């Protein structure tokens, strides 16, 4: 399989450990990731909230880059997924709108014909259970509080294959590498960062987060597990801002990277704000298979 990697601003420019882990994991799984000259997705809360047509034009430009090479797009962030999947939906379903946007793109020599599929990495992983088992070198034994994040689950009409009321696709992957999901109240609720609220109204963003963290902490998990660098950022920075809780934060690809035998330091999970030392210690003490 060959896919165009859409790393997104945050995994690329703030939590490089997530980009690193992604490249490591997908290489192990035999998926070739191709790079393209992308912009921000652009972010669905702020930029779409400011001007839908600008959001569509830049989204269309990104999709056109992948389409040129006949590749589908792999997102590793719910924001990028929601944004590109959303703009793709409009550009595919609404030929008039697509032409309008193409009139803009053609002025810079580009065009999008609607031929790309936007994938979320969790969905791709869910089709690769056997390969994950083959590549697994460690059963990590971590107890993880899974946070799905809004733009993976909703709008559900855009994600037909998924059981949005009671999803277990991430838990199923975690169980393959010996991790135990820890349940908590209001599991599918928002982290508080989306829609421009993270940068626009920190007080609200942090109150929503605090409520979520309180429920998560009840089960005493080893870490919070996410599938979105923006949720990741909110959990990691937010705990510091709240000066409360101290739960390490891990993206699914970081967990898989460790399970596939890469040293946590090499994946740079120690560059997070909330200390990951306990996780690193635990993983170091494990024996590789074979």
């Amino acid at each position: 399989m060959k896919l165009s990697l859409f790393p997104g601003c945050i995994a690329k420019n703030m939590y490089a450990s997530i980009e690193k882990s992604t490249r490591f994991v997908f290489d192990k799984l035999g998926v070739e990731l191709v790079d393209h000259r992308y912009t921000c997705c652009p972010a669905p809360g702020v930029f779409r909230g400011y001007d839908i047509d600008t959001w569509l034009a830049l989204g269309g430009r990104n999709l056109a880059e992948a389409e040129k090479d006949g590749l589908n797009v792999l997102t590793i962030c719910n924001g990028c997924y929601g944004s590109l999947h959303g703009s793709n939906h409009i550009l595919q379903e609404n030929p008039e709108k697509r032409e309008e946007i193409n009139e803009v793109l053609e002025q810079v020599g580009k065009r999008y014909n609607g031929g790309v599929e936007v994938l979320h990495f969790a969905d791709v992983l869910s089709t690769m259970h056997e390969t994950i088992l083959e590549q697994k070198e460690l059963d990590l034994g971590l107890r993880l509080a899974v946070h799905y994040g809004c733009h993976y689950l909703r709008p559900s009409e855009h994600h037909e294959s998924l059981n949005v009321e009671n999803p277990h696709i991430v838990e199923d992957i975690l169980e393959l590498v010996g991790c135990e999901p820890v349940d908590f109240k209001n599991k599918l609720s928002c982290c508080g960062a989306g829609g421009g609220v993270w940068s626009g109204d920190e007080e609200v963003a942090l109150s929503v987060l605090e409520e979520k963290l309180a429920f998560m902490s009840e089960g005493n998990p080893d870490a919070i597990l996410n599938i979105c660098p923006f949720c990741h950022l909110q959990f990691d920075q937010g705990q510091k801002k709240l000066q409360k809780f101290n739960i390490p934060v891990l993206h699914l690809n970081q967990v898989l990277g460790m399970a596939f035998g890469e040293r946590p330091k090499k994946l740079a999970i120690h560059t997070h704000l909330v200390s990951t030392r306990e996780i690193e210690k635990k993983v170091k003490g494990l024996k590789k298979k074979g």
Partner: protein
Amino acid sequence: MNPVEKAARDSNVEKCVQCGKCTAGCPSGRQSRLRTRTLVQMAYQGQDVTGLPELWDCTTCYNCAERCPKGVNTVDAIILLRNLAVQKGNFPRIHLSAIENLYNTGNGFPLSPEVAQIRAIIGLKKEPYDVSTAPEELEKVKKILDITGFLELVRGGTT
């Protein structure tokens, strides 16, 4: 039809029966002044809600749209209303730096020297392969933004 009424109609707001399920499931509303049901009602009545600061407190979590028994596209409505607010120059200036970043680098969050260093240490390309490191492509992005009038739009206005 005024623009708020048009945004309301485009989002099925006329189907609302004011049941309040949207407000009940809103994570932001518990912490802010955002009241989704009221917002929908005001928009339906064509009231100018573009000046309400709570329009910007929606995290776009889509809980409301999922729960609405009448298929009101509450989030679409909020996004359209934000667009109108921006056209009127009535929006939080706090997002301007992200917008300038988008124009200047193609990314909402640009690369800092510290993270560039981390990237190099862990074996990633120090400078990511994106438009920020390809001047010709970045010019095209700026041209797209100039054509859609994005910067002009956000630099205008008074508040």
